[in-house]
């Protein structure tokens, strides 16, 4: 059921194992293959509220497996415009498809220049190699 290891080139990455897909002035956020593999099968997702403000480098929610709980770190700042209800109801979606169906939130970015501070796929693969 788990996806094979991958770090798509069209995404941006954060050191705390989160990704961002930039779509105009919005971004879709989630956790990487590495993160879901370390946690094991997810059993719970505690999302932020719709309309909440999230700040780069701080936690905006939590994911849990049986044996671990992890903050989800925001790679970018913004206002939450959508929460992925599918993951709330079936958290294991993140394990099966961390970059597609397993997205966590969509935000409207408050500071698009923050994107420049994120890692590209190759740089993130380095981070993974060092972990």
């Amino acid at each position, binding site marked *: *059921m*788990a996806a094979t290891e991958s770090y798509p080139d069209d995404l941006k990455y954060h050191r705390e194992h989160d990704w961002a897909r930039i779509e105009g002035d919005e971004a879709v956020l989630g956790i990487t293959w590495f993160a879901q593999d370390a946690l094991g*099968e997810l059993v*719970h997702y505690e999302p932020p509220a719709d309309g909440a403000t999230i700040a780069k480098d701080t936690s905006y929610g939590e994911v849990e497996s*049986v*044996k671990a709980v992890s903050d989800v770190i925001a790679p970018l700042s913004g206002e939450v415009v959508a929460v992925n209800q599918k993951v709330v109801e079936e958290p294991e979606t993140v394990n099966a498809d961390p970059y597609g169906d397993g997205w966590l939130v969509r935000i409207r970015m408050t500071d698009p220049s923050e994107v420049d501070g994120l890692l590209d796929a190759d740089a993130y693969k380095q981070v993974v190699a060092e972990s």
Partner: protein
Amino acid sequence: MKLIFEKSQPGRRGGELPKPDVPAAEVPAALRRSRPPRLPELAEPEILRHFTELSTRNFGIDSGFYPLGSCTMKYNPRVNERLVMLPGFRDLHPYQDEDASQGALELIWRLQEALLEVSGLHACSLQPAAGSQGELTGLMLMRAYFADRGEGEQRDTIITADTAHGTNPASVTMAGYKLAKVDTDARGNVDVAHLRELVDERTAGLMLTNPSTLGLFDEHIQEIAGIFHDVGALLYYDGANLNAVCGISRPGDMGFDIVHINLHKTFSQPHGGGGPGGGPIVVRDKLEPFLPVPAVVKDGDRFRLDHNRPKSIGKVRGYTGPFGVFVRSYAYIRSYGRQLREMSEVAVLNANYLLARLRDAYDLPYDRLCMHEFVLSARSLKREHGITALDVAKRLMDYGFHPPTIYFPLVVPEALMIEPTETEAKETLDAFVDAMLAIADEAANDPTVLREAPHGRPVRRLDEVKAAKRAVVKYGFEDHPDLGAEPAEPRQLEAQKGA
């Protein structure tokens, strides 16, 4: 096996209590029970059979070897079970007059004195109900001590080791402190250089257990104590590993200012399936004014409760604490008396014996003599055969042993934390070694039998993922879901790494 509710039949009952010849008293209508509670309805023989059957599906120290690290699963003396049932203890109300409770108050005082002697400190409260409550109480004492000195705002951080049990950081947060973590060095000691970087005038104190959860005595403990005392901070000792050093080295002499002791570990209170326990704290005299109330004191040849402690932090639990636990611990300490040291010596010998015989078949992260426990790693088994510490633990069950602690401390991957205690016979230790060696062999030659273990328990390996995703936490009677009919959870076995 059926739940007791599933065995229930309307109209059956256990015992009956006397019904006095008095007029009935009406509950006011607004407060009256509307639906009877669905408690079980069985006659006494069936109730007893039910719980007997449950006990046959359980494993205790009475059943066999139970080497959980830092839990000290030693024999629970049966005489203690008789002593707590003496009517003078068992049927005594806590608000009985002091002159009519002198036996109980004296026992409490004597236990306090014994704990002071073992720990090398000056004042004691037996009130906390468990080790983690002792920790919280100790941190509250620190808070009160510093506030009293006008340093309350200044001191906001507690330092714990990266090998600490989860209760340490949790207690720190609950006490309203910030947490800093110090590394462990290659020899298994606290990294003193790192510690010096962390400690400053904002530090309230250190929380440490010594020996550590690696089972190693910190060789620099005196230097560590000096670092904290030099900045006016305090040292807190987590007594979970006290079984290693009784009569040999005392935490007060190591430099600790506050100590909690786990009566259900070191001093033989039975663990009861998860509790009760006892977490008394002993402190250096400068912290005595802040101890919980009431204190139990000796006044001439009488014993009394002293509520007159204006600087006390207050009360962390009802009354003087879990008295039945005190009876057992006091009796246990008196049974050893001044020979208590032998308890620790044999605990340490048993652990080193196991370590010597297992160190080649498993990975040993720290190459030193251990104290009362030691940590091995199944890392090579994982790398070479895909067998994890979890698999080893589940397979040990088939050999008739309770597994050791696994995946703790966090600094060791695939950790197996083994504490035999002093009450195990050499033959038991040898049989455990044989099992561990057989399992290492099976990892190479028959890994499937490990991955699907246990095979010989009342249940096969249980699906913890399913339990977390769909929490069924009570019997639903007619509406009870059939979890067995639901589709099997994918990756359930792999997801349970880190158990």
